[in-house]
């Protein structure tokens, strides 16, 4: 984009469109957490993004773009759920076989006496990582590696800020099951961030 073109409304629009697109990954995860189905999530996010582009003029810039997009997405998800319910009488949730690959992986973080192995070191400048775009890419990869249900529960609890009682209802699990799932998700994410970011933080990126 050349200098002097900054005030061109077309350019402004194009920039905003590109910026909207950059939130797609987040919105997909949000929708997947709600709908449990990647394909349906894709569909709803597509609808939401189109609606956002359509209604771009009503974006005041008062709230963060992501917040605005999320509110559109929420409406689209509700819409979608109503549609599905009226189309089909009942949607069965496929049973999930989480942790099936290695049910004891989290035990390996501790030795026989229950001590961390290896010991946990402090992270260097974690707040600085929050200013790095690449760090968020690593975070997204780490979330994607979680078992589906654990990823959903973590996203609802920590990203969406939903209370555990409500998550239990939505997921049809007991509270203690929910707490344990959250704990395992946090352990796994901590490990993943440690391995893929903080251990190499002194290296050049």
């Amino acid at each position, binding site marked *: 984009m050349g200098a002097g073109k900054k005030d061109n409304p077309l350019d402004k629009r194009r920039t905003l469109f590109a*910026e909207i697109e*950059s*939130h797609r990954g*987040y919105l997909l995860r949000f929708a997947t957490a709600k709908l449990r189905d990647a394909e349906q999530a894709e569909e709803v996010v597509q609808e939401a993004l189109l609606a956002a582009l359509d209604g771009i003029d009503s974006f005041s810039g008062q709230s*963060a773009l*992501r*917040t605005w997009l*999320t509110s559109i997405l929420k409406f689209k998800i509700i819409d979608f759920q109503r549609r599905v319910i009226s189309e089909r009488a009942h949607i069965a949730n496929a049973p999930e076989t989480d942790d099936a690959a290695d049910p004891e992986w989290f035990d390996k*973080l*501790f030795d026989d*006496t*229950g*001590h*961390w192995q290896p*010991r*946990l*070191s*402090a*992270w260097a400048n*974690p707040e*600085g990582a*929050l*200013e*790095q*775009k*690449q*760090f*968020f*890419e690593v*975070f997204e990869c780490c979330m994607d590696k979680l078992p589906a249900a654990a990823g959903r529960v973590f996203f609802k*609890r*920590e*990203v*969406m*800020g939903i209370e*555990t009682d409500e998550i239990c209802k939505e997921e049809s699990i007991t*509270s203690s099951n*929910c*707490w*344990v799932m*959250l*704990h395992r998700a*946090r*352990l796994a*994410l*901590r490990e993943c*961030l440690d391995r893929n970011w903080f251990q190499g933080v002194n290296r050049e*990126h």
Partner: protein
Amino acid sequence: MNTEGVALSCKNAALLMSHQRDRVLSDIEAEALKSHLLECLSCCNFKEQLGFLHRLACRYAGNGPPHQDEPV
């Protein structure tokens, strides 16, 4: 309960620290965790990192990542 309180392993302490973010700990749990943290550096680091994970998730939900990397 004996006077020394409940000795926690790191594994159990980690579980309680995680639970603490989702529910209120019982007095016994809170007390046991407190004394464990007094003498375990790894678990103090874990507690810090749990807090950071929460800030990271909030940031992710809020403005998302910065659009460009800050100069290092």
